[in-house]
């Protein structure tokens, strides 16, 4: 019987190796796999290349990985200068390489990897500093930038509900980068608010089908992030 559930976050991340490339889902505090990232801090793998939208805030989660000096490269679109003190300190010391991408290009490069594409041409960024060094091709009279697929060794996701087959369902804005990252990594690990019996998630409400997911771990809502003040409705 297939059972992708694991008991703890530390067990879920135990095989992350030095030098690994890892995608982290999340946007703002919604859909961030904070407890998997904290388990990775304890696990110890280093020289990591991280792909996610932002640059972390404070000393928790990704901010903590920067604090610990564990990240060699960040691929992101939004650098939060005020809150990302740990990223900024490492970057300014020259310890972290930054690959800055338009947010849609970041999402689409991940999607391209998951869909088995060799890349794509987009007008976004043509003629700007972010297209420097990239191939330009004129299509329909408009310059386009060639972008390559972005894939990873691991993806850490956060979902609301999951089952032992790896099916996932997100609440509201938790979804963000999570479903697309689920398609683009060799090992996909999801932390969820609740593991439910197979069959309980209606087929049409499964946002990430289990085919993409390798491990599911149930966690309490992260006390570090904003807590619901009223009971959250399950989908």
């Amino acid at each position, binding site marked *: 019987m297939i059972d992708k559930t694991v008991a703890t976050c530390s067990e879920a991340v135990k095989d992350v190796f030095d030098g690994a490339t890892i995608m982290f889902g999340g946007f703002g505090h919604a859909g961030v796999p904070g407890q998997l990232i904290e388990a990775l801090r304890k696990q110890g793998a280093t020289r990591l290349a991280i792909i996610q939208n932002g640059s972390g805030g404070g000393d928790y989660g990704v901010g903590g990985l920067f604090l610990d000096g564990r990240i060699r490269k960040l691929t992101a*679109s939004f650098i939060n*200068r005020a809150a990302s003190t740990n990223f900024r300190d490492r970057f*300014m010391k020259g310890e972290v390489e930054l690959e800055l991408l338009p947010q*849609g290009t970041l999402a689409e490069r991940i999607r391209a990897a998951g869909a088995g594409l060799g890349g794509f041409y987009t*007008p976004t960024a043509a003629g*700007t500093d972010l297209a420097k060094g990239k191939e330009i091709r004129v299509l329909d009279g408009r310059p386009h930038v060639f972008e390559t697929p972005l894939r990873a060794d691991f993806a850490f996701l956060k979902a609301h509900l999951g089952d032992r087959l790896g099916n996932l369902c997100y609440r*509201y*804005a938790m979804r963000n980068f999570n479903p697309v990252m689920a398609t683009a990594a060799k090992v996909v690990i999801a932390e969820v608010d609740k593991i439910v019996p197979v069959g309980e998630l209606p087929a049409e409400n499964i946002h990430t089908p289990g085919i993409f997911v390798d491990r599911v771990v149930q966690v309490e809502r992260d006390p570090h992030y904003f807590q619901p*003040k009223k009971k959250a409705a399950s989908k």
Partner: protein
Amino acid sequence: MTLTRDGIAYRVARDLPEGSYVNLGVGIPSLVPSYVPKGRDIFIHSENGLLGVGPMSVPGEEDPDIINASMQHTTLLPGASIFDHALSFAMIRGSHVTHSIIGAIEVAANGDLANWMMPGDALPSVGGAMDLAFGVRNVFVAMTHVTGKGEPKIVTACSCPLTAPRCVSRIYTDLALVEVGADGLVLREVAPGHKVAEVQALTGAPLRIADDCREMDVPPVYNGVKLIA
């Protein structure tokens, strides 16, 4: 007396047609929803995967999983939808979102937009700005007419790195409404109590005065908020 930040947002909101799908940037653009005329259906898009965004949450009633692209707790209107980042940016890059209301550091007379980095900035941040500027047909800039030092933000050529070339169609400021035409900038409206010559003096590129150039129709106060101060 010039338009307040809310005054600029009020003037932009009046120009959003029924049925428009609108993405709002941070700052002045985020004030626009309060000023959409009653009964006009427009849909607010948020990059992180929301369409049909409503008013900000009432404190104490926030849902932890409903946030906008500025990471503020917000609400969803009836008929709203949720989707992932790839689909959200397909809406933007595929020109399905009809209007982008966005801030700017500089706008050039040919519609070039600079809003993501200052010259020599060691740590620039782009977010969704380029996707919006390249993908959305109606890019409306909402900004103050001059910098804090009094220097024009509407210029002949941008000195900051571009977000996208030739993308801006209209510029809404505390002093004027300027349209980006095929042959340069056209002054459409002037803030109440201001003269055309004054606006031109504070603009770093030549303005052609529209034949029907008029005073902006913005009330001094709306729902208790000062629009002109």
